[in-house]
């Protein structure tokens, strides 16, 4: 929560910069040609590696928190750069005949995606409060896994590229504040599936489907 608070402050600071009065001669309702719109986000991801996550954490759902910035054009095109973070404590385990046995050895993962999205906002009219959008992009996913009783080379630290598509809608709440709800489908190969539980059960995708909510400052 503290992290989210810090992000909110940062967002507000940036928002003040972008929310300058319109240039003389332009309509006050008409957004600038290019806007910089900071946002904070919270997401709940349903990981594709279901057995792996269920074995270690008892659930395949996990929350991410983060923020980013969007550069949007009046024509509807936009680019997002977002960073988020997940921390999750669990247990080491093994799987036998589909049954999971947790061993009580503490384990912790962290996942930090940095994602670059390009997309299109389908703004139907200037006064419309609902703006659907679609996009897709590429991300870099920094994964770290530590566990008790590990020797130095048994910790995992890996960064791998992944890709995703996203679709949702943005609704304007106030003149300078919008909320966006979307779903993002991510594929992150190359981290899971090489060893450990994920290899055991044949799961090699660290991605999944995330329901995201973003609070965006800007028009």
């Amino acid at each position, binding site marked *: 929560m503290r992290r989210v608070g810090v992000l909110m402050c940062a967002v507000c600071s940036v928002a003040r910069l972008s929310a300058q009065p319109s240039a003389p001669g332009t309509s006050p309702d008409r957004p600038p040609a290019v806007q910089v719109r900071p946002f904070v986000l919270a997401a709940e991801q349903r990981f594709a590696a279901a057995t792996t996550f269920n074995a270690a954490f008892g659930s395949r759902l996990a929350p991410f928190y983060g923020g980013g910035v969007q550069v949007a054009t009046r024509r509807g095109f936009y680019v997002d750069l977002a960073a988020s973070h997940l921390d999750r404590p669990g247990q080491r385990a093994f799987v*036998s005949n589909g049954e999971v046995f947790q061993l009580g050895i503490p384990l912790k993962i962290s996942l930090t995606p940095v994602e670059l999205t390009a997309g299109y906002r389908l703004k139907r009219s200037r006064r419309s409060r609902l703006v659907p959008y679609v996009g897709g992009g590429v991300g870099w996913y920094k994964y770290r896994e530590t566990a008790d*009783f590990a020797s130095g080379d048994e910790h995992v630290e890996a960064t791998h590229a992944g890709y995703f598509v996203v679709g949702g809608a943005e609704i304007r709440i106030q003149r300078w504040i919008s909320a966006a709800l979307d779903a993002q489908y991510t594929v992150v190969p190359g981290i899971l599936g090489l060893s450990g539980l994920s290899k055991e059960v044949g799961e090699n995708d660290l991605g999944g489907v995330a329901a995201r909510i973003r609070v965006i400052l800007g028009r």
Partner: protein
Amino acid sequence: MSGAHFRCFFFTLTATAALFVARGHSQIADEHRTFLYPYSLPAVDQGLMSDVAVTLDRAAGSTYVPGRVIVKFRDGASTTARIRSLSLVSATTAVSERPSYANFDLVRIDPSDDAEAVADVLRQRPDVEYAQAAYRVHPLMVPNDQLYGIQWNLPMIDLERAWDIQGAAGSSVTVAVLDSGVAFQSAVVRFNGRAFRDDLGNLHPALGPVDIPFAAATDLFSSSRFVQPHDFIWDDNLPLDLDSHGTHVSGTIGQLTNNSFGTAGVAFNVKLMPVKVIDSDWDDIFGAPNQGTDDVVARGIRYAADNNAKVINMSIGRTGPPSPVVEDAIKYAVGKGAFIVIAAGNDFEDGNPTEVLAEIASRVQGAVSVAAVDRSKGHAYYSSAGSWVELAAPGGAARVFGRDGLVFQQTIDLRLGTSLVEPRACGVPASFAVPRFDVFMFFGFQGTSMAAPHVSGLAAMLVQQGITNPAAIEAALERFATDLGDPGRDNLFGYGLVEARDTLRGLGLAR
């Protein structure tokens, strides 16, 4: 101990019984033993069997990881001062990114440099608070038992690091030892020694009533260590070991550890349930009413399961026709939540016949058969091979490695306890003095009997860790075993050598 004596006791372990007890006597009342006193004189400990060099191979002193030095600069030391300090050491030094949870820096140096010397130089600098090499830290749990240095078998399965994970090592788990009994109690017992005939055909006169002293093994006994003892050979609750085998096996499972004495055991806090299902030669001479037959073994298995044993060690076996009565009992025990470990057999060079009890284990999820490896993780020359072999563990082999290749635990002093067995192998005339079972030594044995209790101890640690389903215990042991021999399961090693630390630690998501 002389070589002749050594061959004597070794032979008694690996050969079938070669003593013929004259049973011409009528069934008389004094056939059964009489428990005279609950204690005898204190046990005598004879130490280690002779001619074994105790070498503690843990070198004193520290070793460090080359290529880096740990440095803490004083608060306020400028970047320039830091760079200057580092440049004094070498032109190639560089500060790595500060690791998490650190208030110090890791300085990379040339791996060929002496890290201690580099640290010495840095320590002289006024801007350096401290500097040291990155000394390797070892597991804390290296037992202080005097003879731990000769127990190559425990580090072989990475037990030290397993103890780091689970120091309790099975304190809430009961392991039943179905064997020749255990030296679990001090007592004086009056037996009636009958006449008997040895395998040379010599008839030996009756000893008559004899008072035999027993003592609890000094490196095995502790208060609350033994639970629910039962003797199916004598039909009472006094499963005393008149052989040495069961006491040795029990030592591998749960020898008292970190007590600055003797040897260590795998699951050293475990509770032991002595269940006697095998008769020794002395049991026969003293007229035990039962012998170690399938029905007795089956009853022992059921008894252990009914009395909440979570692991049952069976360092016993036979060849020949199938044994439905034992198979039924094994399935019953597994159904009640007991994990069963059975020795895979010692007959590889004797035609390698199918081991009946071990073969049953291979067909039951929740029971395993265990082959033996020698000190180099090779196939122990005697260890039976076949489709029934599921796992391997250290069993020792003197043929290749001499006595240093044996598995050492405390047991009854064979020179006093079982000296009558196999006079030919001893190379000396038979001497049938009245035995005593209150004198102990640390003896080296070999056999799949010695391999199985390693697995039982490890299984007890898994149970302690919450894996109580026998089938899951088997799956874990097989999954984390180190594959030996042909890739995958094979007939010599099964799924491989058990690996204690990896088994207890399990898997993370990505490693």
